[in-house]
């Protein structure tokens, strides 16, 4: 492997890891607070991508500036989070927190099935491709390699700001502290007057918006087609489990690990590309059963 390919693999890995991180961090945030593993999370990713690509294609065709793609991504992400994610938590998940884990996962699995068809009904089965945002930022040259600025600079920058922003939000702001309090002990938090139901709703919307944002950003780099949500959810599960459930910083590291592993596999051993995330996850869990940063829970008798 020559140095150029090596650098290419690293760039690919980082760009990919940034996208995966956005989805995985939403998943792990929701799990950390609601204790529900959200199988429908991949659908938010797909819907964010679809919304951005379809609306983008329409407004750019009408002659508007391609720079509008960036605010559009943010708007699409928030809208998907609020319009799709909000009702799901409010009407459905809020009824199942007392149920056993298996049933909770199945409820989100059912939501996933429903949303897959909703996407097909709204956007059809034809793939969308809308790369105006990618073109608008142009290319950069690093180590003699020309790479798109969008993937090399923007995506990692967004991922890092989300990571830092989320950390500051949880530790420094009142709403963030309320979320942490409810995560720690819902009953005690409720007894001192914290509206836990609202915290759950807000967390779910934020998590869903992050996934949709990941999708919106991804839409510029790949064609948007049915099945992309299903692929992403399995991958982000792998990231979240590798990191340890509910670990935000851990998810960043695991995403990087898996992203780099995958991109090196593409250059060195393409057959293994799809396997790498799962192999990494299996290896990590074999050595650390609760994930890289997960804490083992005490057993209750």
């Amino acid at each position, binding site marked *: 492997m020559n140095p150029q390919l090596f650098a290419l693999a690293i760039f690919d890995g980082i760009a990919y890891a940034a996208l995966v991180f956005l989805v995985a961090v939403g998943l792990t945030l929701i799990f950390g607070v609601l204790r529900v593993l959200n199988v429908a999370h991949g659908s938010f990713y797909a819907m964010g991508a679809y919304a951005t690509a379809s609306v983008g294609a329409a407004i750019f065709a009408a002659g508007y500036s391609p720079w509008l793609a960036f605010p559009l991504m943010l708007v699409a992400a928030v809208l998907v989070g609020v319009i799709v994610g909000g009702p799901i938590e409010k009407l459905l998940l809020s009824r199942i927190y007392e149920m056993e884990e298996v049933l909770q996962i199945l409820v989100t699995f059912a939501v996933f099935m429903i949303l897959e068809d909703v996407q097909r009904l709204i956007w059809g089965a034809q793939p969308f491709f809308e790369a105006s945002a990618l073109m608008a930022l142009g290319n950069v040259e690093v180590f003699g390699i020309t790479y798109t600025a969008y993937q090399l600079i923007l995506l990692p920058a967004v991922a890092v700001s989300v990571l830092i922003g989320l950390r500051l939000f949880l530790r420094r702001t009142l709403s963030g502290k309320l979320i942490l309090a409810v995560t720690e002990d819902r009953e005690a938090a409720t007894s001192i007057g914290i509206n836990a139901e609202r915290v759950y709703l807000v967390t779910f919307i934020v998590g869903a918006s992050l996934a949709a944002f990941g999708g919106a950003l991804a839409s510029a780099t790949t064609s948007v087609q049915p099945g992309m949500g299903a692929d992403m959810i399995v991958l982000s599960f792998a990231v979240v489990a590798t990191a340890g459930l509910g670990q935000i910083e851990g998810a960043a590291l695991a995403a990087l690990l898996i992203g780099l592993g995958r991109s090196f596999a593409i250059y060195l051993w393409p057959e293994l590309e*799809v396997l790498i995330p799962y192999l990494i996850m299996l290896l990590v869990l074999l050595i650390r059963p609760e994930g890289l940063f997960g804490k083992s829970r005490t057993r209750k008798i």
Partner: protein
Amino acid sequence: MQFNLRTVVPSLIVLAVAVLPLLAPTTQVLLTLALSKGLAVLGVIVLLQAGQVSFGHALFFGVSAYAAAFVGKGFGGGELFSMLAIGVVASLAISVVVGLFVVRYRHIFFGMLNLAVSMIFFSLLEKFYHVTGGSDGLSVARPLFLGIEMEREGFEMVLFYLVLVLALGAAWLTHRFLNSPIGNMMRTIKTNEVRLEYLGVSARNTLLVGYIVSAGLCGLGGALAAVAQGVVTPEYAWWIRSGEFVFIAILGGSGSVGGAFVGSLLYEAVRTYASAFAGDVWQMILGIVLLFVILFAPSGITGLFARLTGRKASPASEEAGQ
């Protein structure tokens, strides 16, 4: 003689399923596939007794289906029973290896690790297409039945009744297994694992036994489905397929063995007719049905039936309904 709804209705269902292909031949393949899937669902139900859900049990369905297909290819047509036997043995062997690893985990990690292993197998099937035929899969030629070569109609008929007999046998054996001491120990893993260990029982070994049993059931279903369908594709081991098994288990009722088959018959019927009449939204219909079952009838159809007849179906279903 006492008229007992609880024994009469299941017998009537079995009778109806047995007679239906004679009256409506088009339903035969559908029923064969539904019952094969029902065997895999039965495997998932075994694990659900221990409170564990696997999102990767299609692995064993797929391993066995491919093993059967390879036997068929390697021995020019193959023989039905040897294909089934080798399919089941292959999935049992894999389940021991995977099981030793995954029984150390519980709940979400258990589910996710199973998912990961099945995804690895799925990708291998897709990537190594010179061996597995890639995403097109392998065709499974119609095998001999006890050394006799049969015409298509005759073979399908024989296969259907064979599946029916195997399903009934498997249901009975699984019922016995779940009510045996080890079955009860598995239920204790769900209610209180630490207490089980205080009794000197290894929870891991107990779960491993359950895991192997469940993989064997999935394997039997997979090999039968491969023969019935005449083709195996990586889709056999896909995670959506695993999710489907869990879905059917909850739909039918995770507490009793009958639920697996009632659920899979209903599921296949809805799926076939919904995809014929409402092509684009059948997945949505299934999702909505699943939501209704979980929210309003968490012990599934068999649980609902038990409630209507005013009796408890079995101690297990009572637990699942909690």
